[in-house]
């Protein structure tokens, strides 16, 4: 089992994202502390597709917020491209849960938002057009989010995350609210987008199937305290498809392994 691969890859070559002994503890209102993430090591290479899977409360959102620079680690070192992560970075684009589009802006203006704020002052019409074309949203530029389906809203959110052409696309359960069929289609589109763009993708999900289908690696996390309990390489040929991939023995074996890791994590947390 390749569960401890992370420690060795750090030495082999400089990863794009490197977390060394990173932990996050939150203070509660009554003066206590909650360990959202126990000391963890994780390294992600440039261009890799890493899926992080785990139950609610396993610290995967905390890990995402750490990488996005939205919270600081309590201990440990967290680096992006060899530099310590301090605050939000232009090299990380975030696609939030439930799309989080601004309902008063059109599709084009939502995608343009990152190019208008935070020290950016570009019209970015070419960039917006390019992104909308890539995600099949041409013709919807002047629509408002409430006029779009859930899947299309999520596409707009992905476009917005990519607007500044970041190295890393960070996605926090982007397809959780979609129906099963739309979700599968979005998975295929994301795979396509990733292979064309060459971005590093970190996808947070609680679907084992989605994680195995999309990831080069699946990082398995467990709750109370949130920690990494497994890191598996997914050696499935690409492009993967819903006709063939889920039937492959490797797919089934990895899915079972991840489920076992999650079950073990759950039983360890509740003695």
């Amino acid at each position: 089992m390749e569960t401890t691969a992370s420690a060795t890859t750090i030495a082999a070559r400089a990863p794009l994202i490197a977390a060394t002994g990173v932990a996050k503890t939150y203070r509660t209102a009554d003066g206590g502390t909650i360990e959202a993430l126990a000391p963890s090591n994780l390294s992600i290479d440039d261009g890799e597709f890493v899926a992080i899977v785990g139950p609610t409360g396993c610290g995967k959102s905390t890990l995402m917020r750490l990488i996005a620079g939205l919270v600081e680690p309590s201990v440990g070192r967290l680096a992006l491209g060899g530099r310590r992560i301090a605050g939000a970075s232009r090299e990380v684009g975030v696609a939030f849960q439930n799309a989080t589009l601004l309902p008063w802006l059109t599709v084009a203006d939502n995608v343009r938002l990152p190019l208008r704020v935070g020290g950016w002052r570009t019209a970015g019409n070419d960039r917006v057009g390019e992104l909308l074309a890539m995600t099949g949203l041409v013709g919807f530029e002047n629509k408002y989010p409430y006029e779009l389906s859930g899947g299309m809203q999520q596409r707009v959110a992905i476009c917005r995350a990519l607007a500044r052409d970041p190295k890393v696309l960070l996605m926090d359960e982007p397809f959780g609210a979609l129906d099963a069929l739309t979700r599968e289609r979005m998975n295929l589109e994301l795979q396509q987008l990733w292979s064309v763009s060459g971005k590093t993708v970190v996808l947070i999900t609680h679907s084992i199937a989605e994680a195995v289908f999309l990831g080069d690696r699946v990082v398995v996390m467990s709750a109370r305290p949130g920690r990494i309990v497994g890191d598996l390489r997914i050696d499935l040929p690409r492009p993967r498809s819903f006709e063939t991939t889920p039937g492959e023995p490797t797919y089934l074996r990895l899915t079972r392994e991840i489920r076992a890791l999650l079950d073990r994590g759950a039983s360890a947390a509740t003695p």
Partner: protein
Amino acid sequence: MSRLDAEDLSFERSGASAGYALGPLFRLALTLAGGVALVLVWEGCVDWLKVPPYILPPPIAVARALWSGLDVPLDSPAGFYLPIASTLSNAISGFAIGAVLGIATGSIMAESRIVEIVLMPYAFALQVLPKVAIAPLVVIWFGFGDGSKIAMAALLAFFPLMVNSFTGIRMTEPERLELMRALSASRLETYRVVKLPSAAPYIFAGLDMGMVYALLGTIVAEFLGAQQGIGVTIVQAQAATDVASVFAALILLGVIGIMLHLVIRFGERRIIHWTVRHKT
């Protein structure tokens, strides 16, 4: 002050819906029938109960008073047009001043903990105070001219806008704020791009209420003394026990109030289309 307290303070428009599914035409007919019934009961009271006209004039006398005030040249001193123009312009000027100051104060309070801690208790205390009680003071400060009318209108419009913009900004979805942080947006950008639009539905509810209050403030100031205005028309008619003209002026005020409300609702539909769509 906590979010809960802020919610208690807010003037939210209650989502009124009466559960019945009636056709729009039938509903309109029902409303009109109610109005006709009211006039008939009114006429009946005057005719059968022999209510004297200085208590309750018959509907026809009120209609005649209304018509005599409207069927004159625009600049006739006997007509309703000059008082309407005076009251309306003072109420709208005061409303504009009060709304801008209210939104600005509410925004600063929502953005700064320190300002909130310093101002909130006093804002709350003033909120509870019946503000028309300040009118005599306002007349002393601003005189019997337009100044005191505009000041009263501004004062009354200020509070609902301050409280509603404060509440609306504080209610901004945390996800939207996190998005702006992930984009390294400045505080001003976050306010302008996310917080103010997020608060817009609250602000419009405040504008709706503030407009009514501004009209109220102007009329109260006019009661205390003015050269012209609908308040003056009412007081003069009352002095002459011309009750029919008092009624006519009140009907005019009602119509003006409804029209101002409709203007704000129209603006609301145009500007915050995204929430209006969601309601349906």
